């Protein structure tokens, strides 16, 4: 299983970026071989509109089936659902902390978006 975590930097020690569509990086973590890969989201950060939808396309390409992030807007949530990516909100601390929290079952799967678009 591949988990995507929004991050401010490129490593497992980087802080979780609470934004989804405009996160600086996505860390894609493979729970089987425990490998991690950083995916640049500069395009999402620069996008005028549609950053969330664009980010979902990126995660789908990376084969992620779960997302750990801070918040998520309505367009992104609709796209994540269609892409079959489970969403876990309220992740904080480092990327490694978020992965641990997810494995401990401390993050609950979201049933919908928790913020409106352009919330930051």
């Amino acid at each position, binding site marked *: 299983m591949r988990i995507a975590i929004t991050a401010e930097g490129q490593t497992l020690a980087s802080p979780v970026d609470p934004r989804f569509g405009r996160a600086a990086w996505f860390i894609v973590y493979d729970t089987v071989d425990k490998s991690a890969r950083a995916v640049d989201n500069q395009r999402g950060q620069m996008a005028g509109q549609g950053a969330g939808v664009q980010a979902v396309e990126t995660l789908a390409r990376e084969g992620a089936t779960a997302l750990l992030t801070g918040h998520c807007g309505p367009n992104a949530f609709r796209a994540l659902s*269609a892409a079959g990516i489970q969403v876990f909100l309220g992740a904080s601390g480092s990327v490694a902390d978020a992965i641990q929290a997810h494995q401990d079952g401390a993050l609950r799967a979201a049933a919908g978006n928790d913020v409106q678009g352009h919330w930051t």
Partner: protein
Amino acid sequence: MTGAGLPDKGTLHIAIASGKGGTGKTTIAVNLARALDRPVRLIDADVEEPNAHLFLKPEIRARAEVSLLVPRVNADLCTRSGDCARACRYHAIVTFGTLPLVFPELCHGCGACAWACRAGAIEEVPHVIGTVYSGTAGLIELVWGTLDIGQPMAVPVIRAVKRFADRSRLTLLDCPPGTSCPMVTAVRGSDFVVLVTEPTPFGLHDLGLAAETLQRLDLPCGVVINRSGSADRLIERFCAERGLPILMRVADDRRIAEAYSRGILAIEAVEGLVPRFRDLYDAIVSAAGQAGRPSGDVLHAHV
């Protein structure tokens, strides 16, 4: 000199723009339109916050909805190829090996998805994003548009109000502030642009951005200093460096601000302003003539 490649001064299209918001574009536009005392069409192209009608109080003659064509997917015909999503630059239609998801508010209405779909599964349907109004107020024919709340895309509504721009008539365009797509869409095609600024560092900074934008668009311009006073040198120095004419100065006068706050024209609140606005028109005609930019409509006169 008319007929020698210059636009006929009686049918000039004059855009009133600025970099910074709140410098007085509408004040200049509505007072100029009224002071001219002759038939003029005023197009309020600031569809995100139109306000010329608040001062002119026109009688509304017509209104029409503005819509964009957005995709609608026929699930029976869709082959899940993803061709539509690959064609869309704006991520307004996306697929994950699934039926496409459409996000109408991200759609620019270009039709690329329908064109790319080999299965003919995409139908384009109107998505209303705003309204265009036209009306009359004395000799002024006013056209304005409103972008619906929550709609991010102003440009299609600006294009819709600009369809009322008629090359055979004197036309003033009250433009949106800034230097991005809405402003560029609004000023494009005009004969001359009046940049309204204020003598502050912020006013100067955004005047510089606006002047640079117009230079790239190859549009001649001049400057009106609003709330003119002791700091004018800031703007004067810039205009001298760039060779931009200062067309008018409107004094920093509390009576003008009070009238504005009540929706009353400055020329009705302060005596002696009507001739000043007529002088502004003459200055625009003169500057537009010196700019010597042939308008598209009179090019055939060279034959």
